[in-house]
C-alpha cells in the first residue's frame, strides 16, 4: 500500500511564457520515496541527514534522550538515492532505552553535486526481528 501522493504535478506553463508565467512555473513535487517500509512505533522522533556517497566510508552521530527501562530503541538506517529510488543499504538497531527525541548529523563532507546517501534515525518500540515488506 503506497502513499496517495498526487499522481501529477499541476503545471502552469506553456511555450511562449511571459516572465511572470515563468516565475509561476516553479514547482516542488515528490519524485519517489518509500512505502511498505520501515515501521516505527513512536511517531515523534524521526530524523534524517544527508551524506555524500562519494565520501563513504563516513561517520554520523546521533543524539537521543534515554531513560533506564524505557522500551524504545533507536534504529539508524542508510539509504542510497539512486536518482530514481531510495534503496536501503544498511541498518542497525540499538536497544538503548530511547525515551523521546532523536537527532542525527553527518560528519562527512556533503556535496551539492550528484546523488547522495541519506541517514535516518528513528525510535522503535520493539527490537527483535527484521522483515521485508513489498515496495510500492
Amino acid at each position, binding site marked *: 500500500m*503506497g502513499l496517495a501522493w498526487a499522481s501529477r504535478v499541476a503545471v502552469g506553463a506553456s511555450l511562449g511564457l511571459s516572465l511572470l508565467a515563468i516565475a509561476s512555473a*516553479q514547482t*516542488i513535487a*515528490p519524485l519517489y520515496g518509500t512505502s511498505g517500509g520501515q515501521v*516505527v512505533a513512536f511517531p515523534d522522533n*524521526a530524523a534524517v541527514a544527508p551524506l555524500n556517497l562519494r565520501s563513504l566510508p563516513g561517520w554520523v552521530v546521533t543524539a537521543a534522550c534515554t531513560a533506564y527501562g524505557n522500551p524504545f530503541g533507536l534504529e539508524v538506517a542508510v539509504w542510497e538515492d539512486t536518482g530514481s529510488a531510495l534503496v536501503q543499504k*544498511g541498518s542497525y538497531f540499538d536497544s*538503548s532505552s530511547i525515551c523521546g527525541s532523536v537527532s542525527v548529523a553527518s560528519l562527512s563532507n556533503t556535496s551539492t553535486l550528484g546523488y547522495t546517501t541519506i541517514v*535516518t534515525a528513528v525510535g522503535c518500540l520493539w527490537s527483535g526481528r527484521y522483515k521485508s515488506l513489498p*515496495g510500492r
Partner: protein
Amino acid sequence: MVGALQVTAWQVSSSGSISPLGTPAVDNTVSPDWVSVTPLVAGSTRVVTAVDNLINYELKVTAWQVPSTGDIKALGSMYKPNVTGYGSITPLNSSQVVTADQNENASGDLEVISWGIDSAGKVTQQGMVTAGYAWNPVITPYFLASNPSVVTAFVEGSGHLELITWGVSSKGILTRQATVRTGSITYPAALAFIPGDRLPFAAVLGGNGVLDVEIFHQSGLSLKELTSYQTSGGYWPQNPQGAAGESDHRVVTAAINPNNCDGIGDCELELEVWYFDSSDYTRDEQSAFAQTAQSVCAR
C-alpha cells in the same frame, strides 16, 4: 521520567552498512524532552548538541569531540535558563552555532541565540534576539551572498507558519532580516536548505492535515513563498520532522504515515525525495515508486 542525553558515533561503510563506533557518551545531568545535534562544520570531528532540560527548564548546549575511535568526549557546555517547548540547532561556521527555542515565559516567545565554540570546545553565549510566540521552532543555515544567515520556522500565535531570516555577525550579533507568514498549519516544521538552489525549504503538517512542503526565496528584505505542494489522499504525517537538503534541486523528508499502521501502534516511516523545478518547462511528476525491501522494527 528522568532521562539522559546519549550521543553515539556510527560508522557507515563503503557498502552502506552502519554500525556503532566506540562507546556512546552519556550526559546524566540533563533530562531532555528534545535533542538536536549538528556538526560544527561539514567534515568536522566535532558536533554540538542542544537539549532542553526538563528538570530546570533550561537549554544546554554542549560541544563534543568525535575521535576516530568513536569514543565521544564532552568538551564544554553552557546553559540558557527559562526554555521550554521544542527547539533545534544549526551550524554557522567553524566557531559558531545558532539555536532556536521557545521561551518559558507566558508569551512563549521565539529565542534565537548565537553560540561561540572556541578551539578548546568552550561554549559561550554570544547574542540573543526574540520574536513573538513561536511553537516548535526549527532553524537552518541560509547563506545570502557572503553574509552568514539563519532562517527560523515555527507556528506563530494564530496558527500560521512563519519564517524569519536572521543575519549573524562574527561576534554573534543577530539582525532580523525578513519575515513571511503563510497558511494555517497544525504541526511545524521541518526545515532544510537546498544547497544548490540556496533556498530554504519547509515541510509542515498543513491545516487540512496533509503534508505540505513549501519553498521560499529572499530578495533584499522581502521573503516570499515560491511554491508549495500538498500531498493528497488523507495522508496525515504525524511528524514531518526530518528534512534534509540533499543536492541541487532536491530535498528529502521523513515522516510517519499513520495510515500504514498495523493496528497496535506501529507505523511506517516514509521517506520522500522532492524535486524543485525552477525552470519554465512543463513536466510531470516522476512516479518512480520502485522500492526494495526494507528492514523494519517489528515484533
